[in-house]
């Protein structure tokens, strides 16, 4: 039976989770929105007098117990919701200097549990076919040139998405590869969970159904 892969695949039925928020709370606390009060020693200055900054946080758990994770995964920001790419959205991934976790996390949104393909999200192998560039990782000298070249090669309107703390603020390891203002959408997390990634991409494509 295992030999007949087609039947094998069908027999497993649909494994995709219909409601993505079902995975929201049980278990996954890191990374998620952090709440609390008081001064703590934060290695990346994500918690200062102004409160918690998701784009700087590397979710290292050093602020426990003053601060606690809420399990709220919606830690992203987008300039606006643009319905241009509602039907199909092709992204090109640029690894500027990651630890590898962001790379595997963005790929895991295509795992059967999430199946981002059904939402019309695809990864392309060349920026010439892409609608948006996803930038991951910290600034590295040699990747600046290829990164700029990739952004230049995307057909207009080209969007740049910052994925992960390294790309947004540099995290603990360095500085960010692009200015914060360049990003159309900023997805926080170290690394952002597949859930956060999908929510952010859905929102920037104006496809959120629950109206939040």
């Amino acid at each position: 039976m295992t030999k007949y892969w087609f039947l094998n695949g069908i027999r497993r039925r649909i494994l995709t989770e219909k409601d993505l928020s079902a995975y929201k709370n049980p278990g996954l606390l890191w990374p998620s929105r952090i709440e609390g009060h008081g001064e703590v020693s934060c290695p990346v200055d994500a918690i200062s007098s102004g409160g918690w900054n998701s784009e700087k946080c590397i979710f290292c758990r050093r602020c426990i117990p003053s601060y606690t994770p809420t399990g709220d995964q919606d830690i992203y920001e987008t300039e606006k919701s643009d319905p241009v790419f509602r039907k199909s959205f092709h992204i090109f991934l640029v690894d500027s200097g990651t630890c590898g976790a962001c790379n595997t996390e963005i790929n895991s949104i295509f795992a059967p549990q999430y199946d981002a393909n059904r939402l019309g999200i695809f990864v392309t192998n060349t920026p010439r076919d892409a609608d948006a560039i996803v930038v991951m990782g910290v600034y590295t000298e040699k990747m600046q040139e290829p990164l700029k070249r990739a952004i230049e090669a995307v057909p207009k309107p080209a969007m740049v998405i910052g994925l992960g703390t390294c790309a947004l603020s540099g995290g603990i390891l360095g500085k960010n590869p692009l200015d914060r203002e360049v990003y159309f959408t900023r997805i926080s997390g170290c690394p952002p969970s597949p859930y956060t990634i999908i929510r952010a991409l859905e929102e920037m494509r104006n496809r959120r159904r629950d109206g939040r």
Partner: protein
Amino acid sequence: MNSLVMISLILLAGSSASGAISNRISSAILIAGSVLFGFALFNPSQIESYFSLIASVVWILVGFYSISYGQKYGRWLPSMLSLTVFGMALILSSKDLIMVLVGWEVMSIPSYVIIGLYRKASQAPFAFMAFSEASLISLVIGLIILFNSTGSVAFPLRIYNPLVLLFISLGAMIKMGITPYSINEWLPVAHGSAPANASAVFSSTMTLMGVYLIFRFVSATPFAALFQPVGFLILTSGVFAALFTALYSYTAENKKRLAGFSTVDNQGAILAAFGLAIMTPDETIRRFAMITVLIFTLAHALGKTGLFFSVGSSSGENIYGSQQKTDRIGKIGSAIVAISLSGLFPTIGGLAAWSLLESFFMQAYYGGYIGVIAIISGSVIAMAEGLVSGAIAKILIFTRIFKAKKYAKNSYESIVLLVTASLLVLAFLLSYAIYGANYTGGVPTTLIFPPFDITSKFSSGSIFGLVSPFFISLIILFSFTAWWGLLRPRGVRYVEPWNTGSEQHDDFTSFGFSSNIRIMLGRILRTRDSGKESLSISNPFWTAMILVGKYYRKATEKISYGIMNSSIGWYMIYMIVAFLAIILVVSFL
């Protein structure tokens, strides 16, 4: 022999003589003589006269090309070139076979001189010479048998003995480059940037003489079971040569060698059509095959001339690293030539490929052992034509289009190239005339009115297949204008080519282009990894030919030292003059 032909022959001889004075004058007289020659001999009702027309068109083009191109090569070249043309004119205009033989030698000998003048390696011209003499001997034997059996060697011929067909074909095949497989090999070896006009004349018209001779003999051969073994022999050697030379052409790195091999490939295809014409019992297929030969010859003669014109203006022996000046007219001309040589519409080359495969598959329809032979041969030839398309694409891409280093103003030579290329399209549109009323028709329901269809059919009258050059040209023209008018991209933003984020723009080489065949057919091509270069192949036919040339040279050296004890060069000239004199004396006795 009428007076116009006589005058044209005198003009051609005069062109040869005036070559010593000026290249321009010689070229001008060559053009005038060729125009007159074509005009005097052409007669639409006589199918053989098309050969004279094709040849004279090529000579005219070569004449124009030589006006600017020949400057670089001194005065020997125009002289010898015109002498070769004179020899060919003799062959085409002669009324009997003795004159053909005389023309044969007059045509061959100047080519030895050109090889001798522009040689770098000595073994290639000797190999060429050895095989040319073998060709003459074979022709003479055929002639003797013919004379013994019929008592006459004048046209029109009557052939009863298959041996005549065998020996004459063998002699002609050697000239076409089939038997030693690589007649044009001497060109690249002899001179890196060999004169392109000479290459054009040799590649397109010298081989044409072989085709012409076989054509005359096959036309005179009636269908009989007696001739079928000879037909089979001609067919298989044609198919074999076509396949192998296509392979060697595809893997060749030397520009002229690539073109030379593709010439032999075309000759192989033509020979296969001859073989089919001899073997088939169906009269309509036989005539169709003979027309195919003519169409193929026309496509090849014009296409090869264009290819050598195109290659001629680039420097360097090899495709890799060649520096090419290019201009827009030259690019368009090269593209059309490549399309024709690749056997694609809307050029006469496409029609030739269609016609050839059509005749084989028509025969296959009959079944029987000839049908089986026909379908196998047809498939192999289709395969060979595909490989040659790749080879031609390779030479065009890597010399004219992507790898062109410098842009130049439109040159005189490019204009001649474009004219040559236009003739390929024109010939496609006018091909109805060659096929004649028997093979043209139309399907009014599809808006193709008679006689805009070329139809392949059986003796019974039932249609096998059809193609309409007019319609194809119309569709291509229409869709091109429609695309340009409607779908032309607007609002273009130019960006750098995307090479996986790297700033390097790697050079894909012509060698890499053909490595797939080198590896896949490694057993046949005997691909090896020698120390200096990777994936080198060896050509056993060429190795054998060099060997024969070596022995020939040794033998002539012994004789020359025995008789004259002087330099080999002077001996060569002496031999040539003596040989010419003897032949002239014999022919007029």
